[in-house]
């Protein structure tokens, strides 16, 4: 029996509606079971697991370096944030010092990831509510960012570009020009989106006062990221527990007190501006130097050095065939992904494969707030609410 709602005696005239998993505005394969009184949602529960692939079991079978490729596939809209979270957790376990240049490149790419993820959110959210053209504009700019990713890593989405100890490769020549070009173009494009939506009366009517959640409830339900900041809680892992030299950049944490769909929209729009600011600073202050840590038993050697140095060849063979042995212990490291606090909890038993790797997926926790914000609202608002918490089912089901 799939998940369903029990009927309440005496309320037989209410309709139980199964929404999804095949539904264009459930952003993947989310299924909601709604009890409707007319057009009003009385009760709601969600049903997930349609994309469950057992990533956490697979983590235990692969070596630490191989595990990076799994992280891309969880939150497929923010692969680089996932790469970063996993790499930082393993680096914390290994107590590995990452060169400054690699840290800055990581920051630039994860902030671009945030922008492109927010662009997908904005486009699909707007299309759910009926603003068709925004979607096309957003995907146009997203493509520019994906081209940068492709240039850096050879892949548009499943990048696996961050490795334990730094980056997979030295960034290619001319990549900064590509980023510069994007930085020049994007502020104007942001104005375009805002021009279409922010003061648009239809947009405001569909989002203001809809799906409101208070700060206390948001904290109690474990909501994080822009959805939490849309309820006025000033919490951002990048500021609270800075990683990868985020403490070196000036940026604001946008918050809104209202807690409704419109507030979450404004927060994400402001966040894209802040991300641009961070990319600008990181690009201006980009240090010179290596992009990989000096730890030959962990970091893969250069292709070139393998042809001339026997040590490099041996290390390469050891890393590929066996992996490296981290110390026994456990670490939890979280990063601010576009959806909120993305945490990796890694337990090591000293073997080359993690004993356990658990992913604290932000969407998994954020989704818990959904029944709360849609109960008592019209069914038409349900799609606005789903869009506003920006869930990615790949990361929820894992």
């Amino acid at each position, binding site marked *: 029996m799939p998940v369903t709602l029990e009927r309440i005696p005496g309320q037989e005239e209410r309709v139980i509606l199964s929404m999804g998993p095949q539904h264009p505005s459930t952003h993947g394969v989310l299924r909601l079971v709604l009890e409707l009184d007319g057009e009003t949602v009385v009760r709601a529960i969600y049903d997930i697991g349609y994309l469950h692939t057992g990533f956490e079991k697979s983590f235990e079978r692969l070596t630490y370096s191989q595990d990076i490729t799994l992280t891309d596939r969880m939150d497929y809209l923010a692969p680089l944030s996932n790469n970063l979270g996993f790499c930082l957790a393993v680096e914390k376990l290994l107590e590995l010092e990452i060169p400054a240049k690699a840290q800055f490149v990581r920051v630039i790419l994860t902030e671009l990831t945030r922008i492109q993820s927010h662009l997908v959110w904005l486009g699909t959210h707007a299309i759910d509510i009926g603003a068709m053209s925004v979607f096309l504009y957003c995907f146009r700019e997203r493509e520019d960012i994906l081209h940068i990713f492709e240039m850096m890593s050879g892949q548009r989405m499943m990048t696996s570009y961050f490795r334990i100890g730094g980056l997979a490769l030295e960034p290619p020549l001319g990549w900064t020009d590509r980023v510069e070009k994007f930085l020049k173009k994007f502020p104007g494009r942001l104005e375009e989106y805002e021009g279409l939506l922010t003061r648009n009366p239809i947009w405001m009517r569909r989002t203001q006062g809809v799906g409101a959640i208070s700060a206390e409830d948001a904290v109690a339900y474990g909501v994080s990221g822009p959805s939490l900041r849309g309820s006025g809680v000033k919490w951002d892992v990048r500021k609270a527990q800075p990683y990868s030299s985020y403490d070196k950049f000036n940026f604001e944490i946008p918050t809104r007190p209202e807690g409704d769909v419109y507030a979450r929209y404004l927060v994400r729009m402001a966040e894209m501006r802040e991300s641009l600011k961070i990319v600008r600073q990181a690009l201006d202050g980009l240090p010179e130097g290596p992009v990989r840590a000096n730890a030959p038993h962990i970091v893969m050697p250069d292709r070139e050095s393998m042809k001339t140095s026997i040590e490099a060849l041996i290390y390469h063979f050891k890393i590929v065939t066996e992996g490296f042995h981290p110390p026994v212990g456990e670490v939890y490291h979280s990063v601010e992904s576009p959806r909120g606090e993305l945490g990796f*909890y890694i337990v090591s038993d000293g073997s080359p494969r993690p004993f356990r790797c658990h992913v604290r997926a932000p969407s998994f926790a954020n989704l818990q707030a959904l029944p709360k914000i849609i109960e008592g609202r019209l069914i038409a608002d349900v799609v606005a609410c789903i869009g506003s918490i920006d869930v990615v089912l790949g990361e929820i089901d894992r």
Partner: protein
Amino acid sequence: MNPEVETHPVVQRLRELSPEALEDAQIFRGELTVWIPAARLRHVAEFLRDEKALSFKYLSDLTALDHYPNEPRFETVYHLVSLEHNQRLRLKVRLAGDDPRVDSLVPVWPAANAFEREVFDLFGVYFEGHPYLVRIVLPEDWEGHPLRKDYPTEGYR
């Protein structure tokens, strides 16, 4: 326990609460982990949430570990955050392998709801007092708990 752990404010507060509230504590890579007896978990959780000087109001993560074939076989792991004091804490509870059960923390942190269902689904740990403890990511008729260490990666054939 080394002095760094002994003088940690959270450890001291828990000791003041009750000497039995704390089984063990350790700091690794700057992260504090405390082990709580299963019987006192609910009480300690409420204390950690409500005590002004601690105020761990945010449950960021909840999961479990399987130490098969060692006993106690299971550990449930809770990652707490204090937004006001910008502090993190890891709670752990050791559970026996034959009938792993522990108090649900949904009444303390509603965020625990989906996480406990996930642990129930994938580890088979039973959370007493959970409002809706059913499988969450696997089908209802699934046999076994895949994240247990005695569950083969390829599944049962």
